[in-house]
């Protein structure tokens, strides 16, 4: 596939992929296939919704920069609250800081950049499963297989692929991928036992 030398889009034209607690992922890195660093936007349509999901960067060890480009947010960084109207830059150097942001105005949008300072950037595996759940099970399974080509044997990608295959009724394939995910990371076993997508797989 030949890529154009450049691309242009308005932030308002980005896809809106629901994630959780009102948080919508607005993919930028994936849309443009940015390869030097992570970059995405997140929008919360209603006050009180999440505009940055609660997480640390304990696994990826990324530095993260959040820029509030629309609306008004309130960040919680470990136990500290930070008022963040539009124009606020929040840089989190320490990957172990627990971070979350809540929207305080309709349509609050945050631009997020991230990468590790110690190694070349590699697109994060979560992008594939975030997108997979926004598509049909067939499309979702294809997206997750694509993710596994970039992150071979990634337990979460294997787990979510098992879920998609479970929804499609491909029980044998689902079981194989679930077993491999649990073999690589036994923590997936507990989640699988209460996951409706895997009921038929575990029957």
């Amino acid at each position: 596939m030949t890529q154009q030398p450049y691309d242009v889009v308005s932030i308002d034209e980005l896809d809106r992929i629901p994630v959780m607690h009102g948080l919508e992922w607005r993919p930028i890195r994936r849309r443009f296939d940015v390869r030097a660093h992570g970059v995405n936007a997140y929008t919360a349509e209603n006050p009180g919704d999440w505009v940055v999901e609660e997480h640390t960067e304990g696994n990826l060890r990324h530095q993260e920069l959040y820029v509030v480009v629309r609306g008004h947010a309130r960040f919680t960084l470990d136990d500290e609250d930070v008022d963040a109207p539009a124009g606020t830059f929040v840089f989190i150097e320490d990957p172990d800081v627990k971070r979350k942001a809540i929207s305080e105005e309709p349509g609050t949008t945050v631009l997020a950049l991230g990468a590790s300072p110690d190694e070349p950037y590699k697109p994060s595996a979560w992008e594939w499963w975030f997108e997979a759940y926004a598509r049909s099970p067939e499309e979702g399974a294809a997206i997750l297989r694509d993710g596994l080509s970039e992150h071979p044997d990634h337990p979460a990608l294997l787990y979510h692929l098992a879920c998609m295959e479970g929804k499609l009724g491909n029980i044998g394939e689902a079981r194989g991928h679930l077993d491999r995910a649990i073999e690589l990371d036994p923590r997936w076993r507990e989640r699988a036992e209460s996951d409706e997508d895997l009921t038929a797989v575990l029957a």
Partner: protein
Amino acid sequence: MSGWRAMQLEEIPARNNGWIPVRDHLGITAFGVNAWTKRETDGAVIAQHDEKGTAHEELYYVFRGHATFTVDGDEVDAPEGTIVFVRDPNVSRGATPIDDDTIILTAGGKPGETFTVSDWERNWEWNRRAFPLYRDKKYAEAAAVLREAVAAGADNAGIHYNLACFLSLAGDTDDALAELRTAIEGDESFRELARHDSDFDPIRNDPGFPT
């Protein structure tokens, strides 16, 4: 407070020529990120340039105002909220403001490599000391500052080029030619720049001047 910093963009002190040094001010070491306002020298927000020297991808976000980008010869209308991603480092890109208060965020890095701070950013402190001397026509003193920079490890093509300029104007032909050759070895684009740079008028007719 530890492990994070939060501030408004306006709280980051601007440097020369429209540059708001977001990366340096916040201490970011994983990717390049800066903000730009209208430049005093040419009125642009983003100077027309390519990234051949760095091989960086660059992403631009119109944070405030309204601009017109020129990318690969195309004009792109870019109101607030526009994202322009230039993946090909060979493509010429720049932006001029439609609104005077336009601010553009830039983010960049080289795919497949751990981020390192670009030479132009590292050179800033040294050039900040040298250029007032240059403007006061104290060329030998300006050259001494950049010799100190090279000795301190800022051993890159941009520093060597400016050092060559100062030495040329100071009348130190041999060293100016040597520094210019070093600059061109590090970044071939300096050969073309030198052809039209009046700082080299004193040495342009020397047989050793790069053509």
